[in-house]
C-alpha cells in the first residue's frame, strides 16, 4: 500500500481543479517558488474603496505578542501576529479554539484584562498612531469612536435593565453630549439602518424582548453609533441559526460597503468566510500560518493546516464517504510544540519542522504568504 495523503483526494463528482490561479503553480517550467509572477487571474478585492497612501494602512498590526500567566505557566497566546486592513475591505481572521484570534482582537481593541494578559511587544498602528503606547484617554477615545466591536453573545453583551434605544445612543449622549430627544431619534435611525422592523416602536423595548438575530442587530447598531472606521466582529453569527446567520452576514457586508468601514471578521467558519471576506489571515497556535486573498486561499491553499482545514469541512454540494480529518488536536497555548507548531499534526512534517519554526514567507506575489518550510509546489510534489 503506497502512502497516500488525505488531503490529496478530490471529492467525488468534483470537476478537475480549475486552471491554477497563480501561473506556474503546477507549471514544471516555473522558476523558484518565490519568484513573483505577473499573471494573476484573481480579480482584485471587491470593495477596495480608496487605496491608502503607499505603505500606510488604516489599521496595521505588527508583530503582536500576548502572554497569559496561568497555573500551568506562561501561555503564549499570540506569538507575533501581523495584519492590516484598509477602508472598505473585509479581512477574515480564521482560526480554531486556542489559535489566539479572539485575544488578538481584544488586544487591538484594548479590552484585554491585564493581568493575567500581558502585551509583550508589537504595534497596533491606527492611522499611523501606535495604540499600544498612547495614553489611556486617547485609547478610550479611539475605542468605540474609531474602532468598534461586535461580540458573539449579544444577550450577555447587552445590559438587561436598559431599553435598547438607550443603550444604542449611550455613547452619543456621553461622548457627543447630544440631548435625549436627538439621541432617541438617532437610535431609531440606527435601528433602521440595521434593518430592525418597526424601529420607532421597538426603541424602548428591552433586550430580552428581542430574538437572537435582532439582538445581534442591536449590538451592531450600538457599535456603529459613533461611525467607526474599523468594525471588529468576533464570531458574530456563531450563536445564530443558519437562516438568521445569512441575514446578519448580509447586513454586515452592506454596512461595510455603505459606510466604507474596514471589517475584521473573527471566525472559525470557513463557509461564512468564503461568502464575505476579501482577504484571509489564518491563525494557528498564536501565529499567522497563511495569508492570502479569499479566492487564492480556497483554490490553492499553501499551508498544510489550511489544506487540512478545507478538506475536513463537510459540504452540502459534495457527498463523500469518510471525511478527511487532521489528526490530533490544536495545541494548548501553554505548551506549543517546538519548531513549527503544526508539525505534530502535519502529514508533510520533516526533521526541520520539529527543529525550527518557519517564518511567514511571501509566495509569488504581494500579499500572499505562508509559514511553511516547504513551498506549495514542494508539498504538491511530495504527494505525486
Amino acid at each position, binding site marked *: 500500500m503506497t502512502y497516500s495523503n488525505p488531503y490529496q483526494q478530490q471529492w467525488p463528482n468534483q470537476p478537475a481543479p480549475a486552471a491554477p490561479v497563480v501561473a506556474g503553480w503546477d507549471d514544471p517550467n516555473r522558476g523558484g517558488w518565490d519568484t513573483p509572477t505577473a499573471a494573476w487571474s484573481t480579480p482584485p478585492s471587491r470593495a477596495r474603496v480608496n487605496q491608502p497612501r503607499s505603505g500606510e494602512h488604516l489599521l496595521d498590526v505588527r508583530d503582536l505578542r500576548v502572554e497569559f500567566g496561568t497555573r500551568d505557566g506562561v501561555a503564549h497566546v499570540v506569538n507575533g501576529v501581523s495584519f492590516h486592513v484598509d477602508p472598505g475591505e473585509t479581512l477574515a481572521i480564521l482560526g480554531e*479554539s486556542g489559535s489566539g484570534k479572539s485575544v488578538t482582537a481584544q488586544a487591538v481593541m484594548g479590552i484585554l484584562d491585564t493581568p493575567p494578559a500581558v502585551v509583550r511587544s508589537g504595534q497596533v498602528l491606527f492611522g499611523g498612531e501606535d495604540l499600544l503606547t498612547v495614553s489611556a484617554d486617547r485609547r478610550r477615545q479611539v475605542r468605540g469612536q474609531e474602532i468598534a466591536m461586535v461580540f458573539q453573545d449579544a444577550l450577555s453583551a447587552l445590559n438587561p435593565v436598559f431599553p435598547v434605544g438607550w443603550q444604542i445612543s449611550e455613547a452619543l449622549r456621553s461622548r457627543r453630549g447630544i440631548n435625549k430627544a436627538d439621541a432617541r431619534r438617532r437610535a431609531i435611525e440606527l435601528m433602521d439602518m440595521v434593518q430592525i422592523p418597526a424601529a420607532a416602536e421597538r426603541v424602548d423595548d428591552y433586550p430580552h424582548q428581542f430574538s437572537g438575530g435582532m439582538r445581534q442587530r442591536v449590538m451592531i447598531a450600538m457599535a456603529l453609533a459613533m461611525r467607526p472606521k474599523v468594525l471588529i466582529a468576533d464570531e458574530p453569527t456563531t450563536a445564530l441559526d443558519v*437562516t438568521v446567520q445569512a*441575514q446578519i452576514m448580509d447586513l454586515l457586508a452592506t454596512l461595510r460597503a455603505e459606510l466604507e468601514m474596514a471589517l475584521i471578521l473573527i471566525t472559525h467558519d470557513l*463557509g461564512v468566510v468564503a*461568502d464575505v471576506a476579501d482577504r484571509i489571515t489564518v491563525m494557528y497556535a498564536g501565529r499567522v500560518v497563511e495569508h492570502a486573498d479569499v479566492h487564492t486561499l*480556497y483554490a490553492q491553499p499553501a499551508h498544510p493546516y489550511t489544506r487540512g482545514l478545507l478538506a*475536513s469541512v463537510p459540504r452540502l*454540494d459534495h457527498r463523500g464517504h469518510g471525511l478527511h480529518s487532521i489528526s490530533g488536536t490544536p495545541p494548548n497555548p501553554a505548551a506549543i510544540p517546538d519548531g513549527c507548531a503544526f508539525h505534530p499534526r502535519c502529514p508533510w512534517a520533516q526533521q526541520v519542522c520539529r527543529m525550527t519554526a518557519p517564518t511567514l514567507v511571501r509566495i509569488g506575489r504581494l500579499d500572499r504568504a505562508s509559514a511553511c518550510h516547504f513551498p506549495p509546489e514542494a508539498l504538491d510534489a511530495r504527494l505525486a
Partner: protein
Amino acid sequence: MPVLPEPILRVENAVKHYPISRGVLLPKKVGAVKAVDGVSFELRPGETLGLVGESGCGKSTLAKLLMRLETPTAGRAYLKGHDLFRMRAGDLRRLRRSMQMVMQDPYTSLNPRMTVADIVGEPFDIHPEAAPKGNRDQAVRELLDQVGLSPEHANRYPHQFSGGQRQRIGIARALALRPEVIICDEPVSALDVSVQAQVVNLLERLQDELGLAYIFIAHDLSVVRHISDRIAVMYLGRIVETGTSDQVYLRPTHPYTQALLSAVPVPDPTARSRRQIIRLTGDVPSPADPPSGCRFRTRCWKAQPRCASEEPPLSQRAVDPHPSACHYAELHQVIA
C-alpha cells in the same frame, strides 16, 4: 425494491407540551409551550436518520423524550416493540440498554470527579447483568481502544482531555451496553472544525462495525448531509419534510427546507455569485403560540389564505415521491 427490515424504533405522534402557569400561591395553567407537537418517524437497524431544524424546533426535546429524560405528554414510541412512553421504571431500565445518547457538550457531559475508567465503566455498575463476565477493566480498555483513545489514559480525569477526546469518552460510555440505537444530539457542534471530522468519521466507523442505528440531530446541514441516510426537517415542533438524504437535499419541496438549504454557507468563494439565498424574513414564532394552519406561513413567500386555515398534512406530493407538509409543494433545486 428490496424488502425493508422492520423498524427498530417507531415513534407515533410524540407530543411534549410544557405548561405555562401564572400565579404564585395557586398556579393556574394559562397555556403550553408546544415544544414537540405530533412527530412520527421510523428508524431501521443500521441506518442514520438526520434530524435538522433551527433552535426551538423541538429536535433536542424529542431526543430527551426518547431517552425519557422528559415525560411525554402524548404519543407512543416503540423500541423493539416495547412502548418507551408507557413503560414502568424497572422495564425501562432494561430497555435503556438498547438505546443510548451522545450529548452535545463534551465539557459538561462527563462527571469531572470521576476517572475515565469510572465513567466508561459506570454502565456496567448500573447493569450488572449486561457487564462482561470477568475483567471489567479489560472491557473498559477495549471500549477506549474502540473509540481511538489510548487505554493507558483510563486513570485520568476528563479535564485532562481536549474537547474531541472528551467526546470520544462520551461515545465509549454510550457504547458500553452494546446498544442498537444511539441518539447523537449535536455531537460535533461544540468541536473545532479540524476535530469535527475525526468524530464524524469515528461515528461512521462504529456504525459499520457494530451495525448501529443513529438519530443524528444537528443544526449543521452539511454534517447531517454527510452522515445521514434519511432526513427529517423540523419546524416549530413538527416534521415538515422527510425523505432520503438525496430527496431532501437535492429535491426539496417544502419552502422551509429550501430556505434552510440555501442559507448554508458554502466554503467556496467562487460560489458567491452563483448562490441564491432565499432570505426568510422575521424570526421563528413562539412555540407557545404557533400560527394557525401551516406553521411556516408567517415567514413563507408562497403563503395563501388557505395556509392560514388549513394545516397541510405531511404527505407525499405530486412533484416528488417523498412526504412534505406544504399545500403548494414544488420542486426547487437549491444545491448546485
